[in-house]
């Protein structure tokens, strides 16, 4: 469920040139066209969608590089 929610946020904020549904959960989102500025929007929209806040220690490329990575970060913050 939460991965679907992540995909929805990515659809709205990721500015991908390809269809997000065609990407696997471990596909590199930056390789798929997500810009650094778009990743800011993705992060803020995820905070809204999951009612959490990404701390400074998580502001790194590896946290937002795939749906699986985002999911793992959200799981950690929600625990």
């Amino acid at each position: 469920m939460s991965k679907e929610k992540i995909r929805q946020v990515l659809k709205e904020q990721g500015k991908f040139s390809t269809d997000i549904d065609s990407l696997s959960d471990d596909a590199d989102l930056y390789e798929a066209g997500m810009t650094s500025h778009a990743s800011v929007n993705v992060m803020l929209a995820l905070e809204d969608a999951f009612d959490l806040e990404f701390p400074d220690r998580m502001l790194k490329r590896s946290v937002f590089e795939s749906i699986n990575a985002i999911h793992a970060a959200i799981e950690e913050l929600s625990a």
Partner: protein
Amino acid sequence: MLRATDFPHFSVRRRRSAQQHGAGTVVVGTDLVWIPEVANSVSRFGQRYLNKLFSVAELRDCEGIPERRYASLAARFAAKEAVMKILGLHADQAIPWRAIEVIRPRGTSPSIRLHEPAIALAKQAGIHHCALSMSHDHDYATATVIATRSLKKPTLRCSKTSPSSPFH
């Protein structure tokens, strides 16, 4: 073809730089931002977006001319990304955007001020002086940062009393 030795003053300057910082290289970072995307983000996320990316001083510097506000914000974001490229971050190195600040004291050109953890990362990368240039035209803003990187022990200037450090 002209060589550096054809310009005596250049040669002297180059030797001094090598004495101060050790033999090194010049590194360049650049970034381009679509200004309407910044305007959309401000509209969508408001102050939360601004506070995540920019310092109070940066936001104040961008308030001057309303029509240029988004262009100024976009150029500053590009500058932060350009510095990140120079630092050569690994995917697992965290750095908040506010750790890289564009400062513009009255009457001077804009420059970069680093805060932790960017100071530590710059030391680790052997980055010394850096120069910043920002520009915008119509829908796009860009920033270019040029820095020197030492190949031996880094000596980035740091204040012992302040958590921040001028990056120039």
